[in-house]
Structure formats: C-alpha cells, structure tokens
C-alpha cells in the first residue's frame, strides 16, 4: 500500500532560519504531490503542488519544493522563516492510477518558529 512519510514530527527554529521538511512516498508509479499547511485555528490550505514539468515548484509565502523521482521525495523548503510560519505542514500524494484523486497524507510536521 502507498505510504507517505514525513521525517520530523516537530521542528522548532528561530526566525530567519532556513526550513526543510522531508517527505518520501512509497508508490513506484506516477504521482501528483502536494504540500498543505494548517495554521493554528485555521483549515488546511494548499502551499504548492507538483503534477508534471519542472521538478522545482514554487508556492505561496516563499515556499518551494523539489520533486526528486529517483529518491521518491518531495521536500519542502523556505530560506528564511517568519513567526507566522508556525503551523502544521502535511505532505500528500495522489497515485495517478487512481483517477479519483484520493489524497494520501503524511503524519504532518508541527513547525514552531520562535521570535
């Protein structure tokens, strides 16, 4: 069965530090990849997505992610975080043999940015 692994459950860092969150998936076929964010008290929002083309995708709020097919990875990065980036981040995958678009989520990474 498909699984999505996020390497860290909790990350604490200071403002202006760089952030990288790891995501790996186990499916060997073609995938669509997403990062969603859930700010405190808010609902899930899309940060960025990869369907095809340039493996380096840029999203909102200065986030980017790189799809490395050979490593089954889709890591999220931000060069300099802000206090407002405190949130929970979810990696998600759609297996493209599944035309229904069912999202399979990782366990999430709680990110806390300290002033």
């Amino acid at each position, binding site marked *: 069965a498909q699984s999505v692994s996020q390497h860290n459950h909790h990350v604490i860092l200071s403002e202006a530090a760089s952030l990288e969150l790891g995501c790996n998936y186990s499916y060997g076929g073609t995938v669509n990849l*997403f990062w969603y964010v859930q700010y405190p008290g808010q609902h899930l929002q899309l940060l960025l997505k990869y369907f095809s083309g340039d493996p380096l995708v840029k999203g909102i709020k200065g986030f980017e992610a790189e799809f490395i097919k050979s490593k089954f990875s889709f890591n999220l990065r931000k060069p300099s975080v802000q206090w407002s980036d405190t949130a929970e981040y979810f990696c998600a995958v759609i297996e*493209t043999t599944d035309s229904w678009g069912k*999202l399979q989520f990782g366990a999430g990474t709680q990110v806390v940015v300290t002033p």
Partner: protein
Amino acid sequence: GAGVSQSPSNKVTEKGKDVELRCDPISGHTALYWYRQSLGQGLEFLIYFQGNSAPDKSGLPSDRFSAERTGGSVSTLTIQRTQQEDSAVYLCASSFLSTNLGQGETQYFGPGTRLLVL
C-alpha cells in the same frame, strides 16, 4: 469567493447516538471528498463523490458510516450509533473533476466539524 463550508463546527454527542455532518462544496466543484483527522490516525480518506455517486467508499471505517450527496452539491456524512473512537475532526474537500485520468485536481478544504463522542 465562498469556500467550502461545513456544519456544525463542533458536535458533542453521547455514545450510541446518530450524527449528521454537512458539507457545502465550492460552487461548480463536481468532486467532493470526506476525510477524517484524528490524533491516532492522522488524516484519512473516507469517501469520494463524483456528482451524486460515490465510486470510492473504501475509506469508510465501518458500516455505521454512510454518506450521500444530492443535487451534485451538498453532502451529508452520517455516523450511526457513534462510538468514542469516532471522535475526530471530519473534513470535507471539493475540487473540479479531473478531465485527465490519473491527474488529480487541487482539493480545497473546509474548516471541519470537530466531533466529540462522550
């Protein structure tokens, strides 16, 4: 524009009671999904609607769970004889229907219904 809305935002019920959770998708979105977010299981897929039909019910955890969608719009998730393990946040998402097999469309999530079964 209006996003996905869900009601109620919070629901407290007693074990054994039935509950109904409602989802209003974004206008024009023909695909609708229910997910569940719980401490032990993370975010799990429950059911998918394409229009009013549900071609994928594979995530429903038991036959106490059912869902319907009417008019290609509003969806209701019903949990019968609720159990304490049903306590979770139930999320609804909607999207345009993918025209390309194997390519999903971006799903937009509602705020969720927080269900507590006592």
